[in-house]
Each structure stands twice: as C-alpha cells, then as structure tokens.
C-alpha cells in the first residue's frame, strides 16, 4: 500500500511550495510555487482515491480546471502590473501596503 508514502511526499511538496511562496520575490516564481502546492494536494487526492473510490480522481479534474483558470487570470494580472511598474519584483509593488 502506497497511501502512507504518498501522503508523506504530498506533505513535503506542499511544504516546499509554501517555502517558495515565502522566500521568493519574483511574482511568476511565486505563482509556480502555488501550482506546486496544488499538485501536492492532487497527489493526496489520488492516493486516497486508490483506497476510497474514484471520487478523489474526479476532484483532481476540478483542481486542474481551477489551476488553469487561476494561471490564465494570474498571469494576465502580472502582465498588467508589469505594464504599469516595469517590474514583477514584489518588493517594488507596495501600493496597498499599510
């Protein structure tokens, strides 16, 4: 049974994704780390689907659709920000900072 190892790998990948979001300042790389976290969640879904029925795999479909939509809109936002500020470094994008 691969459930335990798969959940461990999923947790590690999610933690790596969180680390990337916290450490990196490039907006695009942060986006890629978010995709990594979604993939870690997908791995957990698939691991449970092996034991508890096919519903987990169907949820992976929905996660993929949401990830695609999120990537399209997010990258459009990054393009719009870049057009105004000429940078995607999040340190320079602090208009809403209190």
């Amino acid at each position, binding site marked *: 049974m691969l459930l335990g190892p798969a959940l461990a790998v999923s947790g590690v990948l999610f933690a790596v994704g969180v680390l990337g979001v916290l450490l990196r300042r*490039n907006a*695009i790389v942060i986006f890629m780390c978010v995709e990594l976290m979604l993939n870690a969640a997908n791995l957990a879904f698939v691991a449970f689907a092996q034991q508890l029925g096919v519903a987990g795999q*169907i949820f992976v479909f*929905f996660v993929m659709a949401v990830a695609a939509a999120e990537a399209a809109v997010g990258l459009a936002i990054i393009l719009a920000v870049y057009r105004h500020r000429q940078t995607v470094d999040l340190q320079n994008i602090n208009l809403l900072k209190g």
Partner: protein
Amino acid sequence: MDGTLVIFWAFAALAVMSALACITRRSAVASALWLVVTLFSLAALFVLLDAQFIAVLQVLVYAGAIMVLFLFVIMLLNLGRAGPTDLKGPLGLGVGVLLAGLLLVQLLVLRQASPVAGGPARPALEQGMIPSVARPLFTAYLVPFEITSVLLLAAIVGAVVLAKRKL
C-alpha cells in the same frame, strides 16, 4: 522491498529534489523547467497509484499547457537572463550524453516491442481507466462539472479584459 516501492521512492525523490531546485534557482526560466520535471515525476507517481488517466492529463494539461503559458509570460516580460546553466562543465556534458543515450536505448527497445498482436487483451485495471472516471463525472458530479465550465468562461473573459489595454 518490492519493485513498485523502489520506483515510487525514486520518483518521489526526483519530485522533491526538482521542487527544491525550482524554488532555489535564480533564473525564472530555470525554475519553470525544474517545475516541469516535478510535474512529470508526479505523473509517474499517479501511474503507480492506479490513476493512469489522471497521469496523462497531468502531462497534457500541466506540463503541456500551463507551464508553456508560464514560459510564454516569462519570455514576454524578458525575465530569462542568459546565465550559466545548471549542467555545466564536463559533469554536465557527461550527464547530458548519459540521458540522451538512455533515451536512444529506450526508443530502440520500444521499436523492438510488437503491439498487442492478437490474443486476448489484458484485462484493464478497473480503477483509474477512462470509463470509471468519466461515468461519475457525468452523473454524480454533473453540476460541479457544469459550474467548472462557467468558471473557465469567467477566467477567459477576465484574462482578456486584464490583458487588453483598451476595450
């Protein structure tokens, strides 16, 4: 330890290592390419977990479509500074030649293999194949499926509105 577990841990290690490389590379292009390696290893893990169709989707949708979108935006923003690659020097050359040779051997072996000629087809694994995934998707999960289409439409409209300078 049986073979499946060995392969599982090999791909799991590859996924975690390339994820770490993804978050530590300075260049955005290198990060994106390491993330593609992670996505491919995750596809291999999905196969080992009896989710073959999801693995195919992972390669097609994530590695094929979403990561190309990322690379396209990186190119558009001119973020990929030309820098030294991760595989450099004689070591990089050796690794490159090794991987290319491995691919060549794989292709030659695949060429030898004959397609399933006659005989009874191997009984497909029920779990993870297309019918077992598709049937609930269009019966029990029909409403979420339709809502997903609305979500994608909203994302398309939103992306166009954001990306256009003047409507």
